[in-house]
């Protein structure tokens, strides 16, 4: 049960003179939902970018399923089994919802350009399978009726759901969700929490960035807190909530502070 899917070891990330991440250590265990919290600009998204290969850390190591993935190309990291969503939704807006998800599902296909031109049996088979999987996922996220609509024309909430469906389509061992509830009303947040649990129950491991404390407390197994590029706490939700450093940095200093 306590098998580590992902380990960040002493990750430091510098941009020019600015240190975005400072010696961050983080472990994600198989089958859990780990929430990463911290103020805006604390470096949470930078963590995601380091994990997915967008940034190469200045120092430190990222170990995914026992192997270092530092320096591996982004698309290969996705193939290895890490998928993500984005804080500021980045769908393929000119593609339909279904196409968005099939694009994700294509990751593990073997057929390429030649197969497509000549319509080889494998290509046909894979097309069919990916399409089926994509529809299944749209259904899973409750947006099957949007399949034929363009990504950019979907309502805001469905765009967020579609991003998750697209990420799931790559069949990830680890799913990174970057503020999936941003812009959601409370009812939607509740529904999302259910969905995230459902995703976990379906066998995925989830690393989640979120601001909404009620959501975090509702879904996460563990919480890690980043502040100004440094991890200041890591533990169960209750532990973290009562950590004085966390209260000071994130939850806000006591009202009489000024």
């Amino acid at each position, binding site marked *: 049960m306590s098998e580590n899917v992902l380990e960040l070891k002493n990750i430091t990330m510098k941009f020019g003179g600015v240190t975005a991440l400072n010696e961050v250590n983080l472990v994600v265990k198989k089958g859990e939902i780990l929430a990463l919290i911290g103020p*805006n600009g*604390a470096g949470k998204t930078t963590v995601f970018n380091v994990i997915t290969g967008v940034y190469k850390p200045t120092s430190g190591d990222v170990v995914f399923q026992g192997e270092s993935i530092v320096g591996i190309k982004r698309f290969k990291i996705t193939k290895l089994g890490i998928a993500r969503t984005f804080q500021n939704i980045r769908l393929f807006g000119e593609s339909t919802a279904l196409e968005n998800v099939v694009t994700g599902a294509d990751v593990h296909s073997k057929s390429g350009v030649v197969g497509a031109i000549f319509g080889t049996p494998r290509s046909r088979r894979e097309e069919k399978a990916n399409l089926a999987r994509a529809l299944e996922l749209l259904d899973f996220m409750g947006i099957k009726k949007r399949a034929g609509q363009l990504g950019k024309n979907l309502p805001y909430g469905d765009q967020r759901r579609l991003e998750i469906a697209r990420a799931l389509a790559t069949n990830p061992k680890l799913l990174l969700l970057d503020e999936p509830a*941003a812009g*959601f009303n409370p009812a939607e947040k509740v529904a999302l929490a259910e969905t995230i649990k459902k995703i976990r129950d379906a066998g995925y491991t989830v690393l989640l960035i979120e*601001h909404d404390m*009620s959501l975090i407390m509702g879904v996460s197994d563990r919480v890690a807190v980043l502040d*100004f590029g440094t991890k200041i706490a890591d533990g169960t939700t209750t532990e973290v909530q009562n950590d004085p450093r966390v209260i000071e*940095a994130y939850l806000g200093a006591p009202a009489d502070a000024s």
Partner: protein
Amino acid sequence: MRLEIKDLRVHYGKIEAIKGVSVVVNEGEIVTLIGANGAGKTTMLKTISGLRPVTSGQILFNGEDISKMPAFKRADLGLSQAPEGRGIFVGMTVLENLEMGKYNRKDRKKEMAEDLEKVYHLFPRLKERAFQAGGTLSGGEQQMLAIGRALMSRPKVLLLDEPSMGLAPLMIQNIFNIITEINKTGVTILLVEQNAQQALQRAHRAYVLEVGNVVKEAKASDLLNDPAVRAAYLGTGAH
């Protein structure tokens, strides 16, 4: 100088980001908009300063509807903004960045020394770095520069978009102290903040924005003690 927003609607493509919001900022007040990421706070500020077109509704600045006025002209009215992400001109020196804040002031030369002095007084750090390129500043210094630059135009209303973002706790305190100080010199402030705790402590009144709607409007101190608000935005309501 009163800023009044009436039944504002804004679209991104087909998505309605602001769904009929009304906000009033009275002269001399600090008013804050709080809400989760994606609630439409930044869109509100962008629309007020003219970077986003209005679908419907009015933006009244001292009684005049400016909702159709080009953005660059709104700056001349005395509406000044320190934008999200700070918007520092990275290739310009700190001094040049500050000068940009006075871009359209008729008597810019005459006022320059005076205003620079004021800004340097508020942010002594900027004086030290006057000839350094904006891009080499730290996050906190950039935020100071963004606010300082906005002040250079002698604004009547100052729009601040998440001034605490990415700053260390100490720096956050610092920035908010300065915001209060600026307000005391008579500048009306509309503040968008993620750090609700700080924002509510400093502001006179506040609006809670949720998915493009105002769901609550009250005195800031009242909201600070509102259990629902605490639960949703102050993170301390869960227990």
